[in-house]
């Protein structure tokens, strides 16, 4: 690792001030720390959010949304997110147990790894990502591979999840990394069905609109059988070809619907 200064503020204001002259936010560190070890980043200043208590916790707001503090760990969501069972189950299968005890929802979303699980939940749930500066709708938040709408130094303070009538996440594991080879989150609201896919596309998490239309018309596992998924733009790596990922998108969508 390159040398850096580690700051551990205890308030959001303190964190904002610590980031004022540059530096990088440290969430749970489960992705950032290995990156630093490889010397792929040289942040100079690292601002940990681990001691900002106001970023911790899970509650339900007046609109019935499940609100999760930005520095809340995956394990805490798995244990305390019972108001949104599909989300709690998703959190309980990110990484591995020790990673879940450190990794945070804010860190995962800010990184927007194209194979991460949380982005699929946020996008399918039409959640709102709240920061120290503004609220960002899920559809506006994910802007590309490892890219988000966040500005430099902007801190995710809370993620607000509308709770669907039913929902499920089907994850096909990339067995080495424990990320999703393909993961599909299906959320069924009174207003319609939203389907978000992670792990598949070269541009990161996305909504599968054809499936949303088909499932909004008929919410059954077979409703997506006849849809074609184009392999173009799908990730091609050691673990799966674009054609294979396209197949998994359909199969995992169907299985998520079956699990709803």
């Amino acid at each position: 690792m390159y040398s850096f200064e580690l700051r551990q503020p205890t308030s959001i204001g303190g964190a904002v001030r610590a980031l004022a002259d540059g530096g990088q936010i440290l969430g749970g560190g489960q992705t950032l720390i290995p990156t630093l070890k490889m010397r792929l980043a040289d942040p100079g200043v690292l601002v940990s959010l681990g001691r900002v208590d106001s970023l911790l916790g899970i509650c339900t707001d007046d609109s019935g949304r499940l609100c999760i503090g930005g520095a809340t760990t995956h394990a805490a969501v798995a244990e305390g997110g019972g108001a949104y069972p599909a989300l709690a189950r998703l959190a309980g299968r990110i990484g591995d147990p020790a990673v879940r005890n450190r990794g945070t929802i804010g860190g995962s979303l800010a990184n927007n790894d194209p194979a991460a699980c949380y982005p699929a939940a946020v996008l399918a749930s039409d959640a709102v990502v709240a920061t120290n500066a503004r609220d960002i709708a899920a559809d506006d938040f994910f802007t590309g591979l490892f890219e988000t709408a966040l500005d430099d130094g902007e801190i995710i303070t809370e993620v607000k999840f509308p709770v669907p009538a039913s929902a499920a996440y089907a994850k096909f594991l990339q067995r080495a990394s424990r990320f999703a080879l393909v993961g599909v989150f299906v959320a069924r609201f009174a207003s319609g069905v939203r389907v978000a896919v992670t792990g598949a596309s070269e541009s990161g998490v996305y909504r599968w609109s054809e499936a949303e239309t088909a499932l909004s018309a008929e919410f059954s596992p077979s409703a997506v059988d006849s849809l074609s998924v184009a392999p173009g733009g799908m990730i091609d790596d050691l673990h799966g070809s674009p054609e294979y990922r396209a197949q998994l998108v359909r199969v995992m969508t169907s299985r998520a619907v079956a699990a709803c």
Partner: protein
Amino acid sequence: MPKDDGIGAATTRREDPRFLTGKGRYTDDINVPGQAHAFFLRSQVAHGRIASLDTTAAAASDGVIRIFTGDDFAGVGGLPCGWQVTDRHGQPMQEPPHPVLAQGKVRHVGDPIAAVVAETLDQARDAAERIDVDIEELPTVTNMQSALEDGAVRVHDDLESNLCYDWGFIEDNREAVNAAIAGAHHVTTLELVNNRLVPNAMEPRAAIGDYNVATDEHTLYTTSQNPHVIRLLMGAFVLGIPEHKLRVVAPDVGGGFGSKIYHYAEEAFCTFAAKAINRAVKWTADRSEAFITDAHGRDHVTRIDLALDENGKFLAIRTDTLANMGAYLSTFAPSIPTYLHGTLMAGNYATPLIYVNVKAVFTNTVPVDAYRGAGRPEATFQLERVIDKAARELSISPIELRRRNFIGKDQFPYATPVAVEYDTGDYHATMDKLEEIADIAGFSGRRAESAANGKLRGLGISHYIEACGIAPSALVGALGARAGLYESATVRVNATGSVSVLTGSHSHGQGHETTFPQVVADLLGIDAEQVAIVHGDTATTPMGMGTYGSRSIAVGGTAIVKALEKVIAKAKKIAAHLMEASEADVTFADGAFTIAGTDRSVAWGDVCLAAYVPHNYPIEELEPGLEETAFYDPANFTFPAGAYACEVEVDPATGEVEICAFAAADDFGNIINPMIVDGQVHGGLAQGIGQALMEHAVYDEHGQLLSGNFMDYTMPRADDLPSFVIDHSCQTPCTHNPLGVKGCGEAGAIGSPPAVVNAVIDALQSGGHDVDHIDMPLTSCRVWTAINADTGS
């Protein structure tokens, strides 16, 4: 009477408390006062010429003590290769130099260009980034077929080609085998890949070189399976340090699986640098560094032809293999695809004619050498796969076809057409046992249950043989080995009767500290608690060849027995004197020396005390003391064998393979500690299943390792595996060692890959998919792709 803690007892391990409480002492746990830290600047390109290398700025970095480059090693030997293979035309293999630090060229990603020694590791890393190196990139060869084409880029400019050797075994049989295949009733042919693997012992390699300027003595702490071999190779061939000035210590070692047999550049570097700067120098690999510097395993491309008659009897086997050597010859590398592979090609079967051809190839990749099983898994895989394919083509059950061709138990000793002689075995017995423990009869019911859940269930069988107890020195010497492969033991009886055994075997998970005392306790009739095992330090143990090739109990254990026999013989003389009896009348049993036919006896402890307090002692005929050393050179290999069954479920929608059950019926001959033997089989099975389903070291055409860390190289995890059903009640004891033992360390990794692949193919065939082979690893993507490429489905 077997003792509670003697041979055959499932004694819990005495090593465990230290490992379970964090008190193990691995190389990286050791810190020598005043030590400096080494960091290697490694090539990021697979092939290139070092146009310029300037360390000036780096040398001025904080904390830097010295920077070394290839120039510093110009006068030093290269890393030696321990085996010279002779090709089928009688010519020696091509053997390129293997420098400690690159000399003008880099030949694989990870090849060390320079090494920074600094006060701290971070300072060494910081400085390494300031080394100004300009590498003129050259075209690369990573694919073996391409490497052998005319005009291919050569990995080594001074060699004629990338062909290390073209080996025929047995060359005189070549034409007869070709003729038998040409005229056979049926020939089954299979082309396959034995996938390249990264051993990935959980402890990364590490080395600490220490030097005492006052005595001119070197000490190397290293993660090695064989410290004496490292001392010999590094002292005699690389650095020119005489053995009495060089001590090599391999303390607790966190797994090896072959990868810690070899002499690596970092060991020589730390030893050399410690003297150069007159301070200890420590290096520990990162995992990512391990991926590009530890010797890899397997990496064969093979075509096998099996000829059968109208009754399904095997007539002839011909196999042609390309074996990847990587960029340099690692210590044992040339022997793996040849003498540990070709000699096993008969398997368990009475096939009269066999011919094996192997072309070993240099490529711009990490060197390849022995990995758990080493050559034997490659032989077993192709044979057990082609038999399965033949069974399907001939509509004979895979078990029946194997049984028709087994060497009968009345045929031992059995000389194969590939130059080895099996001493014992009973392959029908292991197959019978497998059918029982795997409930083969119940498979069709289980298949129906899976089908009801939309899954394809398959059953795969394999039967393996391996050659362990490596190895008769004269034989391997004739085959090109540059070392002997005996083992040593000193039995040091202490004055009060306790025993220290100094062994040349090395334990890095195998539990020698527990099993070897079981042998001693049994033979001496004393408690195992009275016996301590000392290993892993050239300063304390006799010259030994170390642990690999499932050799420790068969060769190292026998050396202990031989030393004990000498101890007992001398102790009898002392006892005879104490009892004023004739030596010929003294018997030894249960820890007491008795005059036969009388009740007069003297206890073991009294004899030991007399040996060291020789007041009443036959001093004119016998030296005081009770300590004996034996070197044991085996008369033959040992030949464990076993039958394996794998059941899988394949999800046709995703290609995902789940191992539902795995059963293993092994014949290891006599067993010292069944609990430890079980554990060895479990671990081998996991590695074999890992190879079959998930593990793969993948190079792209530029020589970049795409699966270069645990994010992309899929290691088997707990939730990838079932609990195993294993049995080793079939026992045909080895006939040529006194314990009747055969060895068990590699079996699981040898027998399991074909069982898994056979099971997946069986599952797909049962679903109507005309798929007769998929190359390992059978990832879900590969299986799904194979299903969907099958237009007949």
